[in-house]
Every structure is written in structure tokens, then in C-alpha cells.
């Protein structure tokens, strides 16, 4: 990606070779593909998604149905991942649960990014008392132990998909807010912002059309990580028994089998491993995105 700022500057000697006019998006993809681990992460994530979305067509067992003896070991009696404490097929639970876990992760990340970007953008753009107030607000949320707080929300408002997603999104936006604010503080001082401002552009236009697009790279990287940590968060809530009992998610499998760790560790270890792989894939992709979007690192 070519930094628009770099184009605006006169070409300093020694630099011209660096600035080739290839398509920025294409260059970004090339940068991403150069990071082998990131490509591995992408393939891994696609594989996991194929497993959860396409898998059920080949293996149409109801994850809630009791199909066999409880705690059948993995591989025994044709149950690849075995059965849980109610004799439900863990393989089909893994497929169904993956969709939900990823959906919750994505939705919660969207919520936290929207809140975080809004708070951070206004704080960074206006400065002064607005910034002071918003950053104090952010600090306030940093003081609350996030998991405890979302446990309280879920407990008070009932464990449904919606409350779980909201509870995660509402407590985990602070990092996004901090990243957005510091980017806004930096970009606010740029010449092209001053130019747009002197053209008497409205604040909303400046914030969302001028500054935000330039602040996006680190926000995208952070947002990507938020999906991973939201999946982990959902799993932790489910593990504690605070998830929608009527919806199968990886966390749900873990939470419902938690009391039997010593007898059937696999019923918890397998979905845990799935979460690990998914989050691993996402964070590897995040590293690749960071390389692709961060022009400073590229020169190393």
C-alpha cells in the first residue's frame, strides 16, 4: 500500500525507486502472501470454516441428540471425537458449535470495534475536555475485571446469544479506543487534514471520511485480534456455564462437560483445541495483516 502522504511529498533523493506505482491493494496482498505463517493461518481458518459450514452436509447428526453411550472414547465405535456426558456426538457438536462460536466472536468484535472507534475517534479528534472525559470513561472500563463484569451482565439479563454477545462487546472495546485515539492524535496534525479543515469541512466529514480511512490499518489489525479474543471470551463464559443452553457452541460443549474432566477430559480438550486452532489462525492472519498494512515495518 502506498501511503498517500508519501505521494504528496516531493520526491526526496534516494527515494524514487521505492515509490513504484503498483496498485496499492495488490501490493498489500503481495506483502501478506510473503508472510508464510499468515498464509498458513488463512488456510487453517478456511479449513475450519469448511469443517463447520460444509461438514454437516456430509455428517448430518443432530448435535443435541443422544446417539450412543455417554463418554465413548474418541475413535471408538465410529465416533471420531467420541460422545459427551449425555451420549451426544461430539463431532457434530464441533461442527454446529464452530459456526456459533465464530459468529459470536465476529459479532462481539464488531460491537467492540464500533464502540471503541467512536470513543477513540471523538477523543482524538476533539481533544481537550472531550478527550479527557472519554479517556476517563475508557479507564473506568479498564478497571473493571472484564470477565467478572460480563458474567454479571449475563447473569442479570439471562444467558441468550444476544446477551452473551453484547456482554463481550461492551466490555472489550477499550484497546480499540486507545489505538484509534492515538492514530487520530497523530493524523489530526497532518497537512492534508489541515487542508481539508481550512476548506471548512464539517467535523463529521473530517472524522469519518478524512481521518478514519487513514487510521484504519492499526484498527483493522486490532479488530482482527478482537475476533480471536471474543471467541476466547465466549468460551470462558461458556466454560463457567454462562452460555445459552439451547445453542450449541464450542464453549457450550466445554461448559457442559466441565464436571467430568477427570473421567472424560477429551470432551473438553477437543473443543478447547478447536478454539486454540481458530484463534491461532486468526492471530497468524493478524501478523500478516500487520505486515501488509504497516508501511513502516515493510522496509525492515
Amino acid at each position, binding site marked *: 500500500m502506498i501511503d498517500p502522504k508519501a505521494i504528496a511529498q516531493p520526491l526526496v533523493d534516494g527515494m524514487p525507486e521505492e515509490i513504484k506505482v503498483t496498485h496499492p491493494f495488490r501490493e498489500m496482498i503481495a506483502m501478506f502472501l510473503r508472510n508464510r505463517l499468515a498464509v498458513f493461518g488463512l488456510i487453517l481458518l478456511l479449513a475450519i470454516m469448511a469443517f463447520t459450514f460444509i461438514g454437516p452436509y456430509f455428517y448430518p447428526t443432530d448435535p443435541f441428540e443422544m446417539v450412543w453411550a455417554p463418554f465413548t472414547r474418541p475413535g471408538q465405535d465410529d465416533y471420531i471425537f467420541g460422545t459427551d456426558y449425555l451420549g451426544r456426538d461430539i463431532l457434530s457438536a464441533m461442527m454446529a458449535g464452530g459456526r456459533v462460536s465464530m459468529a459470536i466472536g465476529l459479532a462481539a468484535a464488531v460491537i467492540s470495534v464500533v464502540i471503541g472507534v467512536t470513543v477513540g475517534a471523538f477523543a482524538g479528534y476533539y481533544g481537550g475536555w472531550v478527550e479527557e472525559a472519554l479517556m476517563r470513561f475508557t479507564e473506568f472500563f479498564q478497571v473493571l*475485571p472484564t*470477565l*467478572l463484569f460480563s458474567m454479571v451482565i449475563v447473569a442479570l439479563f439471562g444467558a441468550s446469544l444476544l446477551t452473551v454477545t453484547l456482554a463481550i462487546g461492551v466490555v472489550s472495546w477499550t484497546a480499540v479506543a486507545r489505538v484509534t485515539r492515538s492514530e487520530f492524535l497523530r493524523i489530526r496534525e497532518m497537512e492534508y487534514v489541515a487542508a481539508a479543515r481550512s476548506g471548512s469541512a464539517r467535523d463529521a466529514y473530517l472524522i469519518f471520511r478524512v481521518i478514519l480511512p487513514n487510521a484504519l490499518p492499526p484498527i483493522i489489525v486490532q479488530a482482527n485480534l478482537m475476533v480471536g479474543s471474543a471467541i476466547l471470551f465466549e468460551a470462558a463464559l461458556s*466454560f*463457567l456455564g454462562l452460555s445459552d443452553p439451547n445453542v450449541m457452541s464450542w464453549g457450550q460443549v466445554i461448559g457442559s462437560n466441565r464436571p467430568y474432566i*477427570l473421567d472424560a477430559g477429551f470432551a*473438553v480438550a477437543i473443543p478447547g483445541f478447536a478454539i486454540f486452532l481458530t*484463534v*491461532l489462525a486468526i492471530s497468524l492472519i493478524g501478523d500478516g495483516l500487520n505486515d501488509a498494512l504497516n508501511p513502516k515495518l515493510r522496509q525492515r
Partner: protein
Amino acid sequence: MSLWRTIATRIGYGVLLLLAVLVLNFTLISVAPGDIADSIAGDMGGADAEVMDEIRARYGLDQPFFVQLWRYMSGVFTLDLGYSYFFNTPVTELVLERLPATLLLVFSSQIIAIALGTLLGVMAAKNPTGIVNVVVSFLALFGFAAPVFWTGILLIIAFVSVFPIFPVGGMQDVTVEGGFFIKALDVLYHLILPMITLSSIYLALYSRLARASMQEVLGADYVRTARAKGVPERSVLYKHALKNALGPVITVAGLQFASVISGAVVVETVFSWPGLGTLALQSILARDTPTIMGILFYSSLVVIAFNILTDIVLRLVDPRIKAG
């Protein structure tokens, strides 16, 4: 001195934050459907409207919101956070009874994570092509992606089921007889697995941070000055460079503290560690709102206290940090 003034300002600000925590929680509980009366009635297997009203009156739930809030807040100033009907104990007593176990888990795992993480970070930065560097990169990925309960369960499978070296859970073995020292050793023995589990996340974070920070510092001019003075390499690393590189690690450790408490909730549940986390889960499942709020209050208090402590440590490490 200015250090004391900073501390005083920070404490004043912390008190404000705590008040905000109280208001927020109280509001949430008022907005949420159902109240203590419902839970108690539920436990009793149902109650008629008259009994419900009586219960509400006893707990002051028939009062307007602000009156309830005021009563609660003024109680907090005398450390009276209400009464847990579920445990039949005053909330403060309940929480303070469980707090030491959580603090033991949280502090021990943080100390391990910071010390070991920094050491790994320094070793990785010193030798970018070495094995430690690979270990740190691997840890960083694993530490972020592995759900903490999963790590705990794997450890249980490995060290309790397969190789029965450690106890499954709890904090002490009641059958152990002996003096204070024996008992302390027993607690330590129970602490090991939960501590490793909780520190694994942060070990990953701090080692990566320490590595990045050390790599930057090792390129600094003053490190070259130290070498030019003939300072031995070990001292260049662990004295001249490390004291400069510690700042970011300490700052992040301070910021992470709220998340460490969250992690402790899960770890406590995995290992049945009798701390605030297990208490929180019990009281949430029992809809014991006074206890839940008490836990939130005290854990926020701990986080704020720890943040102030971090500030002080940071100032001791780095003389450049000004008051404010």
C-alpha cells in the same frame, strides 16, 4: 514530595472510579429483570405477592432508585456492602475471607510471568538466531490462542490423571498435619498447577514485550557507551539495558491487572481454588446480587490499588517519569 502528591492524586481519582463502579453496578441490577425477592421466592419454591412485598420491604427494594443507591453507597463507606442471604454472611466478611486466596494466585503467577518473561525476552533479544527466540515466538502465539481453561485441563490430564504428581484442586489438604510451615508448603503444592496455568498467558505476553523492548534498547547509544566503558556484557544486558527495557513491561503488567483477575476466575474454577472467582460463580448461579456487587467492588479496588502500585514502581525504575 511530588511522589506523595502523585500518590494522593491517584488515590483520590481511584475513589472516584470506585464510586462510578458502584453506580454502574447498582444501575445494572435495578434495570435487570427480576430481583432478590424473585430469587428468594424461587428458592422457597414460590411465594405469594404478600410475602414478596415483605421480602422487598426487608431489603429496601420498595424504595425509589436513588434512595436505594444512597443507602448502598453510604453503607460502602463503612465497608458494609450488604448481607448475602445465600451464604448467610455479611458480604465484606465473605469477600475478605476469599480475597487472600485470589491474591496469592494472582500475585504469584504475575511474579513468575514477569520474572521469567523478562529473562526469556532478554535472552531472545541477546541472540536473535538462538533457540530462546523461537521459544518466545512460539509462546507468544500459544499464549494468546490457548483458552486458559484448556491449558488448565491439559495440565490436569497430564499431571493428575496420567502422571499423578499434583492434587486435582483445592488449596490445602485437610488431612495434612503440622505447623505453619508444613501447611504453607501444602498450599504451595496446591498452588503450582493453577499458578502455571494463569501465568502461561502472561508469560507469553511479557516475554514478547521484553524482547521487543530489549531489542530497541540494545540499539541505543547508551548501550554502546556502556560497552565503550568496558562494562562486562552481562552487566550491559542486565543492568544498563534491562533497567531501561523494563518500563513497557511494567506498564503493560499494570494495564493487564484487570484481565489477570478475569483469568483467575476461570483458573479458580478449573482447579476449585477457593478464591473470589469461585465465589463469584457460586453467587451468580445463586443470583446473590449483594455478593456479586461486593466482589466487583473489591476486585475493582484491588485493580486500582495495583495500578497505583505500578505507577510507583515505574517512577522508581525510570527517573524521567514526571509527576502527574
